[in-house]
């Protein structure tokens, strides 16, 4: 028996790696092109959300999987970063009796900013943030004239055997 949310985080990591693979096929200038309506260029968006994902995990698991900043990494480094964060999510979500109402306090040592939020909201935000920026990247790929990868749950299920489909007849 596993937490249903564990699959969502596996999907989250898988989708990021698929997106990075799709970006590997692009010319370098496409990665740096600002896209109207998006967070920024593809590379900026990837760096932002992959870095944030490890930051979110670090608050939640107390820094057990702390990594360097992803803000200057290229695609290979971003893939390694995302894989490491994914391993961290997997380890965390295997802990028994996780309480979504347990408050977690964070303090930014640079400026003293503080946030109190329960675990359930932090997990919801981590998924939301990743899915949101991946979709922005997919829209950016389309705006730049490239095919975007299928990052759906069904595609993840087909790749991992979590879904089986049988046609009529």
């Amino acid at each position, binding site marked *: 028996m596993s937490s249903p949310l564990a699959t969502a985080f596996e999907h989250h990591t898988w989708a990021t790696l698929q997106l990075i693979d799709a970006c590997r096929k692009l010319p370098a200038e496409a990665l740096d092109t600002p896209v109207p309506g998006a967070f920024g260029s593809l590379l900026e968006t990837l760096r932002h959300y992959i870095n944030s994902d490890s930051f979110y995990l670090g608050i939640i698991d107390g820094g057990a999987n702390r990594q360097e900043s992803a803000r200057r990494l290229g695609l290979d480094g971003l893939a390694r970063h995302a894989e490491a964060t994914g391993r961290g999510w997997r380890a965390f979500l295997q802990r028994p009796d996780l309480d979504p109402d347990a408050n977690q306090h964070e303090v930014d040592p640079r400026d003293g900013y503080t946030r109190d939020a329960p675990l359930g909201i932090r997990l919801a935000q981590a*998924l939301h943030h990743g899915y949101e920026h991946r979709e922005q990247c997919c829209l950016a790929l389309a705006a730049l004239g490239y095919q975007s990868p299928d990052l759906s749950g069904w595609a993840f299920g087909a790749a991992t055997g979590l879904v089986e489909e049988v046609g009529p007849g």
Partner: protein
Amino acid sequence: MPRPLAEDPFELHAWAIAGLLDACEGLSAEQLAFAAPGAFGTVMDTLRHLVEGDRFQLWAAGAGVPLTDASSMGSEQLRQVAAENAAAWRGYIPAHPDGDERVVDIDDSGWKRTATVGLRLAQALQHGIEHRTQVCTAMTLLGLETPDLSGWGYGVQRGVVSEVLPQ
């Protein structure tokens, strides 16, 4: 016994769909007919698909709700279906605590799909955020302010997240 971990992501999901429908309430017919490049379709079609698709995910997951055709629905009907979807997720999640549980759905044509509960929840969350992001991108391209549909926005509104900014 703690609440299921999946509850908050689905409460955020429902809150964000309702918030997006609210934010689109005042859009003009021209704005609702605008489509961001690469998006599902126009803003209005994407809102309809978002709500109808969420209902499909619930139906396929075995939540005991009927499928719905939202293709010609207006905002009030979409809001009503979205509220029904939210209530159905609220009942489904505590009743299905095992992410490895396999659920079978068979559509009218005889297409049979077997998938774990964990995968079905991941797909539902992904589908919701994907299409909400498409609408928000369209709003940005139209020069409109987009609603804060993040987990932080949800948590602050629910009163469970507090922030203290630097002096």
